C-alpha cells in the first residue's frame, strides 16, 4: 500500500462525533434549568396570591420545609428503605423473569405457539386487580409488594427481548450459518448483542413499572413504606407532606432511570444515538 492510498484511506474516515456522547450543547441545559426556575416560581406564587387554595397546592417553600423535616424524622429512613428494597427486588426479579421468558419465546417455536396467547391475555388484564389478592396471599408485608412489582415490570422486558431477538438482521444470521456456527454461537455472538438496545429499553420501562407496582401494593394495604406514608398524610390532609413524599418518589424514579441510561450508553456504545 503506497502513501497516496493511505491518505485516501484516512480521508474516507467518517468524522462523526465520538460515540456515547449525546448531551446537547450547554444552551439546552441552561434552558431546562430556566424552565425549572419558572415552574418553581409559579408553584410558590400561585398559592400565595390565592389563585389556588393552599390546602390544594401548598407553596413550594412549605413543601421544601416539609421535605426537610420529614427526611429528619426517625421513622423516615425505615419507610424509605422498605419501599426502596421492594422496588429494587421487584425490578431485579421482574427483569430476570422477563428476560428468560422472552428468550424462551424467541428461540422455541413450540413455547411461543403454546404459551404466547396466555402471555398476551395476561398482559391485557390491568395488573392492579391483583393487588388485593396478593395481600390476601402474601400478607401485609413486603412480599406482596415485591410480587406486585414483578408482575407489572416483567412484561416490557419479556416483549422487548422477544421482539429484539426476532428482528436480528437476516444477513448476520446468514453469515453465521455460512460459518456453520452453532445455535448458541449465533445467539451469543450475534442475536443477543443485536437485541441489547431494545432489551435495555424494556429494562428502563421495567424500572418505572416496578416503582408503580410497589406503590400500588402499599396503597392497597401496608404497615410501612412510602405509599403507606402518602396514604396517611393524605387522610390527615397534610398536603405539604404528601407533596414531599411525591418529590422523593420522583427523585428515586428519575435517579434510577438516569443510572440505567448511563449504564446503557456504556454498554451499547455503538448506537448511543439511537436508544
Amino acid at each position, binding site marked *: 500500500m503506497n502513501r497516496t492510498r493511505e491518505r485516501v484511506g484516512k480521508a474516507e*474516515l467518517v468524522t462523526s462525533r465520538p460515540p456515547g456522547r449525546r448531551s446537547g450543547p450547554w444552551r439546552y441545559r441552561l434552558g431546562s434549568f430556566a424552565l425549572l426556575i419558572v415552574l418553581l416560581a409559579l408553584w410558590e406564587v400561585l398559592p400565595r396570591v390565592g389563585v389556588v387554595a393552599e390546602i390544594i397546592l401548598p407553596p413550594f417553600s412549605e413543601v421544601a420545609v416539609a421535605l426537610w423535616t420529614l427526611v429528619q424524622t426517625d421513622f423516615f429512613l425505615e419507610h424509605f428503605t422498605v419501599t426502596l428494597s421492594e422496588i429494587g427486588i421487584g425490578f431485579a426479579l421482574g427483569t430476570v423473569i422477563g428476560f428468560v421468558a422472552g428468550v424462551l419465546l424467541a428461540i422455541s417455536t413450540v413455547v411461543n405457539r403454546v404459551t404466547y396467547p396466555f402471555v398476551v391475555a395476561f398482559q391485557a388484564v390491568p395488573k392492579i386487580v391483583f393487588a388485593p389478592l396478593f395481600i390476601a396471599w402474601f400478607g401485609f408485608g413486603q412480599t406482596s409488594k415485591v410480587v406486585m412489582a414483578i408482575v407489572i415490570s416483567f412484561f416490557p422486558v419479556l416483549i422487548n427481548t422477544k421482539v429484539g431477538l426476532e428482528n436480528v438482521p437476516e444477513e*448476520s444470521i446468514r453469515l*453465521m*450459518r455460512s*460459518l456453520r456456527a452453532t445455535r448458541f454461537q449465533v445467539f451469543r455472538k450475534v442475536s443477543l448483542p443485536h437485541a441489547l438496545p431494545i432489551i435495555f429499553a424494556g429494562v428502563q420501562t421495567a424500572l418505572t413499572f416496578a416503582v408503580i407496582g410497589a406503590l400500588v401494593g402499599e396503597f392497597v394495604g401496608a404497615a410501612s413504606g412510602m405509599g403507606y406514608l402518602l396514604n396517611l398524610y393524605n387522610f390527615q390532609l397534610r398536603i405539604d407532606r404528601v407533596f414531599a413524599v411525591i418529590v422523593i418518589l420522583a427523585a428515586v424514579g428519575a435517579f434510577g432511570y438516569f443510572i440505567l441510561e448511563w449504564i446503557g450508553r456504556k454498554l451499547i456504545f455503538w*448506537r448511543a444515538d439511537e436508544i
Partner: protein
Amino acid sequence: MLPSVSSQSTERRSERSPVIEVLGVTRVFAGATGEVTALHDVDVTISEGEFVSFVGPSGCGKSTLLNIIAGLLAPSSGSVLLHGQEVREPSRKVGFMFQAPVLLPWRTVERNVLLPAEVFGGDKLASTEKARAAIDLVGLAEFTRSFPHQLSGGMQQRVALARVLAYEPELVLMDEPFGSLDEFTREAMNLELFRVTDAARMTVAFVTHNIGEAVFLSDRVVVMTPRPGEVAGVIDVGLERPRDISVMHDRAFSDLVFEVRDILGGKR
C-alpha cells in the same frame, strides 16, 4: 498463509483439479402466482486458483446459484460437488462475501475479522496473527481498533474481505460485494480485489451485473440469462496478468465486453 504480492503468468490458471462442480442444477421456487424456475440445468466447473464471474441481469439466478454452491440453499435437482464431495450444508472451506459488509457494530475491525476463527475455535494467537495480516493486506492496518460506524462503506467492505481472507477458505463466493458502493470506490475496490486474489491465487466465484467488472477480474465469465436462469455462454478472458486499470482501454478488453453483451442480447 497469506502470500506476498507477486505477479503470475496467465498459465497459472491452466487446467487444475476442480474445486467446485455444478452438475445439472435446477432450482424451482414456489411463488404467489405458481412455480418460478430460478435456475434451469446449470453446469459449471471452477478449478483451483480460478476466478470465475457470473454475470447477467436481475432474475437470472446468479445469486441463487451462489447460495446453492455455498450450501445455504438446496437445489431442486442436480448436485454440487466440492472437491468431489456433494454439498449438503455450508462448509468451512468456503467463504461467503455478501453485498452488504455484514459487520457486527459492537466489534472492532480486528474482532470482526476474528469472528470466523472464534466460531471455529482453535489457536487464538495464530488466528490473531492471520487477522492482522489480512487487515494489513486490505490496507486497513491503521484502523484495527476502529468500529464499523467510524468507517466508510468502502472500508467496511474491505473489512468483510479481510474477514474472508483471514480464515483462508479454499473457495470464496462473492455476491455483488461492491454493488452498493459508488462508482469510484467500486473501481478502487476492484483493483484491490484483483491484487489480493491474484497474489493469493484464490479460487473465487464472483456474482455481478457489471460486465466490465466481470471481465476485468476474471479468468472466465459465465454469462447467464433469466426466465429461466440458464448459462447462455462462457467466455475465456485471455488478458495478461497482472492487470491494472489501463487494461480497460485495450481493444481486447472491449472486444470481450462486447462478446458478453452479444450473448446477453441474443436471448432477447
